[in-house]
């Protein structure tokens, strides 16, 4: 227990987390500090490219083993099934409509890539290795949750939800962040260590610094979102946003143990399951479930679950994983 607190405390005073806190604080006090949209997007493209490439290059050495495939399957299963849990919880804990519950559920089945990135940074700083292909698992988990949510709406009759058609499916699967993550994973895998060496001083050395600035921006956006989204948040919804991540992490842990992942891989699987989308799913929901209130989903996923995972969740999941997985 003391060890967890220690790790959490150490995590809390890293530049990465403090930058996020600075952003939150600036938004809270209504500072006009802000990043241009283009700069924020540029940083996120950089992070996706770097994390994908490094994952691929890390795996190139080992070759694609059998476990990649089973990990992908496990990820998809988690992404499809976690929304059902989230939906049930939301319908019992809050009074949100079927459509809203389904939309929120989709966010929690999917993943937050920046939470994943923060977890890899923490693992790296602790010298804990992880399977490179977890990046591919992350990409695989982005979309399936959306299908679950649309199915929930169709089943429970929550409005005129657009049916999952081929056009929509294509759009979701070829979402920019999925394509960039998978693409750079493949490039890293093909070019391997040789390729990594060529662009190391771009994607490895400055990585953590960029992550700081990006989290500063995320803090600003999350803080602003919380301020304006407050009204939409009931106590039950907030509770949900704090309970769902550990529940997801448990599911991720089970999957990781079944797969026999390393300690690092287990933590990352937990983080993926525990985190909630704030890019791919919100976009898909606007197209497929326009009646759902976007403010509710984003306040929960970006305003509550994201900070929770960043500050408390990740070290917690690491401590729990360490109890289950021999190093």
């Amino acid at each position, binding site marked *: 227990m003391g060890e967890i607190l220690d790790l959490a405390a150490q995590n809390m005073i890293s530049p990465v987390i403090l930058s996020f806190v600075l952003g939150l604080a600036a938004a809270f006090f209504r500072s006009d500090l802000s990043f241009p949209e283009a700069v924020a997007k540029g940083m996120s493209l950089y992070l996706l490219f770097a994390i994908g490439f490094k994952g691929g290059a890390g795996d190139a050495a080992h070759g694609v083993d059998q476990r990649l495939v089973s990990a992908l399957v496990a990820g998809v299963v988690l992404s499809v099934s976690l929304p059902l849990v989230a939906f049930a919880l939301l319908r019992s804990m809050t009074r949100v409509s079927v459509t809203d519950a389904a939309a929120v559920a989709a966010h929690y089945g999917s993943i937050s890539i920046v939470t994943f990135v923060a977890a890899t940074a923490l693992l790296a700083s602790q010298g804990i290795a992880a399977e490179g292909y977890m990046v591919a698992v992350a990409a695989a988990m982005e979309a399936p949750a959306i299908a679950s949510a649309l199915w929930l709406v169709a089943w429970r009759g929550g409005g005129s939800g657009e049916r999952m058609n081929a056009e929509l499916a294509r759009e979701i699967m070829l979402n920019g962040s999925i394509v960039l993550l998978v693409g750079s994973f493949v490039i890293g895998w093909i070019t391997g260590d040789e390729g990594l060496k060529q662009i190391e001083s771009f994607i490895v050395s400055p990585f953590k610094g960029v992550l700081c600035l990006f989290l500063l921006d995320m803090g*600003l*956006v999350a803080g602003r979102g919380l301020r304006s989204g407050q009204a939409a948040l009931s106590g039950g919804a907030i509770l949900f946003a704090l309970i769902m991540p550990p529940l997801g992490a448990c599911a991720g842990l089970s999957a990781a143990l079944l797969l026999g992942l390393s300690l690092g891989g287990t933590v990352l699987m937990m983080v993926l399951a525990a985190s909630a989308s704030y890019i791919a799913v919100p976009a898909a929901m606007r197209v497929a479930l326009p009646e759902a209130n976007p403010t509710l989903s984003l306040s929960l996923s970006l305003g509550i679950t994201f900070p929770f995972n960043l500050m408390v969740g990740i070290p917690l999941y690491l401590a729990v994983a360490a109890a289950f997985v021999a190093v």
Partner: protein
Amino acid sequence: MQMHQAKRVEIIIEAMMERRLTEALSTAGVTGYTVLPVSGGSGRSGEWSREGQVGRAGGMVAVICLVRPERVDALLEAAFAVVERHIGVVSVTDAQVIRAERF
């Protein structure tokens, strides 16, 4: 200068729906439109701003079409079919254009 009657239609719509809207416009025979970026706004669903945002969701764009008056109805049907279930505003103004052959 010789001017011609036209309608200026301005559709403010979610960025995610831009492609669907412009495809619907093309299908309805509208060939010319211009898309302006939108940096923020407010409506029944609250205030928003693009600052620091990464995803496209939560942003809007303004699509401007200049059309001959007789074509405005077809355009509005098409636009409305897309906008209907979505956040968005459609307005029409009387305008005059030069080079009528273009519209």
